[in-house]
């Protein structure tokens, strides 16, 4: 008995010691913090092999979660992937390392229209990752009517009631509501926000859930027949359930760009810069686009892209659809009002 116990204890301690000792082989480390299901393993493996770096990946599910964690003092990550307006906030809050991203060697591949952007003038902090739109997908086997309107979300036809998933994202939901009401985004007009509040609270009874990371799954499983979703994720959903269709609401929808940034105080700044540069190589950006199904921010990816992307409805808005709208970072007093509406809605 005693010997068994002792040998098990010894084995446990030894295995702990073995695991604790640094892994042999990889010379460096890179700690990546990205959205869920947004990074193909293939690219991580390739980067690991090319630069002899051990890469670890953790995920988050909204820009706000990223900001909340940074604000609460979470440190130790090297690279994160904030959206456009969030880059501006992170720069302002001093969370980003100024790496003069535009001087990285592969920056020459960046599409000129993304080479200088309002949320990071001169691209001192960030490089393009992917860009796309946020609207919603509808299961056309459940509802055959016109889907290109935000009424699907806020005043749904009877077939769709109780089968709607909203993104768990304050800006995406509130901005869609403001568009439906015809009010401007980043709005601090109290009367209009009160109207928005009423609209959302009234529509909530038709909604099934608030879910971002499960946005594809609820549609594919049939639990929801309408789901707010990002275009690439919507295309992935359609691959698993062919009756889904991505809508382009005529009231407008959000366009966004996610960007790679190096976090202030990153333990591995040099590896982080190597990674940013690596991701701007067209052949790598194309692997990412093939996986995530959004558009790349660099030129020269076309030869490497999967055939189905060029014809996909999700990546090619019809001529009649309005252009997607980039919503800038809202001023702090608007953020506070948005938070109040959002908390009120979720409770």
């Amino acid at each position: 008995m005693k010997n068994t116990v002792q040998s098990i204890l010894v084995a446990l301690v030894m295995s702990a010691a073995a695991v604790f000792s640094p892994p042999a082989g990889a010379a460096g480390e890179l700690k990546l913090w990205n959205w869920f299901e947004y990074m193909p393993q293939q690219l991580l493996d390739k980067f690991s092999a090319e630069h002899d770096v051990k890469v670890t990946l953790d995920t988050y599910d909204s820009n706000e979660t990223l900001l909340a964690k940074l604000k609460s003092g979470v440190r130790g990550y090297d690279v994160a992937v904030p959206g456009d307006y969030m880059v501006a906030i992170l720069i302002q809050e001093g969370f980003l390392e100024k790496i003069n991203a535009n001087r990285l060697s592969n920056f020459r591949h960046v599409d000129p229209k993304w080479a200088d952007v309002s949320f990071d003038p001169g691209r001192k902090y960030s490089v393009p990752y992917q860009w796309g739109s946020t609207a919603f997908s509808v299961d056309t086997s459940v509802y055959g009517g016109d889907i290109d309107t935000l009424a699907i979300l806020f005043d749904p036809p009877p077939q769709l009631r109780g089968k709607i998933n909203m993104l768990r994202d304050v800006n995406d939901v509130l901005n869609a509501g403001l568009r439906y009401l015809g009010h401007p985004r980043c709005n601090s007009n109290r009367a209009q926000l009160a109207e928005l509040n009423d609209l959302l609270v009234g529509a909530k009874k038709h909604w099934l859930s608030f879910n971002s990371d499960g946005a594809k799954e609820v549609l594919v499983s049939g639990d929801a027949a309408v789901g707010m979703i990002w275009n690439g994720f919507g295309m992935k959903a359609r691959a698993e359930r062919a009756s889904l269709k991505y809508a382009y609401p005529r009231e407008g929808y959000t366009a966004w760009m996610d960007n790679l940034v190096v976090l202030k105080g990153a333990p591995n700044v040099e590896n982080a810069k190597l990674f940013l540069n690596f991701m701007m190589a067209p052949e790598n950006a194309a692997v990412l686009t093939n996986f995530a199904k959004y558009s790349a921010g660099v030129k020269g990816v076309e030869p490497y892209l999967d055939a189905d992307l060029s014809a996909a409805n999700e990546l090619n808005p019809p001529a009649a659809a309005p252009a997607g709208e980039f919503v800038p970072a809202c001023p702090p007093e608007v953020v506070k009002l948005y938070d109040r509406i959002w908390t009120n809605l979720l409770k």
Partner: protein
Amino acid sequence: MTRARLLLLSPTLAMIGFFLLLPVALMAVYSFLSPGTYGGVEWLLSFDAYIQFFFERDFLTDELVFHTSYLSIYFRSFVQALAATVICLLIGFPTAYFIATRPPATRSAWVLLVTVPYWVNLLIRTVSMLFVIRDEGPLNGALTAVGIVDAPLRIAYTDFAIALGLVYSYLPFMVLPIYAAIERFDFSLMEAACDLYAGRWTILRRIILPTVKPGVVAGCLLVFIPSLGAYIAPDLLGGGKNLMIGNLVALQFQGSRNWPFGAAAAVLLLSVVLVALTVLARRRALSSAGN
């Protein structure tokens, strides 16, 4: 001896005192601070976190208006926890009774059968429940195949799903203490009652139930308390729409970024639980004094 004892206890005192008691105290302090803009706190004394439970500022006039939406989350959590407790009792009592009246040899096998699920990962059990009850999951598949229902029953992402998840999570907590109480019951009392022409159900109500009441109360509290603070079941089975207290607390530290409010919500939850535990402890003390 005392020094040796202190030495032996010091790791416990250090570990739990420093890494649990102190954090809980700090959390209570945080509930009286002001929230930072994107999360965190500012060291300014404020009672807003507690006021927020009952009042909100009107959008147009900024006046404080009474509202019930947070209270309703607490109320909902109570109702859910209560429902779970009642269902657990209805299933748990007969089960415990049945097991306690088995021959001693098979009894311990039954007890092990009830115990094992408790030790199985709660997350995985909840996930498997979700898996089973989804619209296109095996349960609905079976129901439609047999023809009991035409269209899949909406079970997932409802309050019922949450209650089901809670029952599934904490059912063993109900069975085990009741079983322990019934096992000690002297069944010759039953014979005596029967000789006095008492019916079966009268015996159950008038003799068995009063005797095993401490076990029943313990079981109910052991289900009710964790249900009240549940996080995983409402999160996964409720679709993130039907919040319970646990989710409200977590939300303040993740998306909504109001730490003082989250801390205050946690303090209130903790207070309720501690009161319930005190009741349990006093009942235990009373019943052991009675014996």
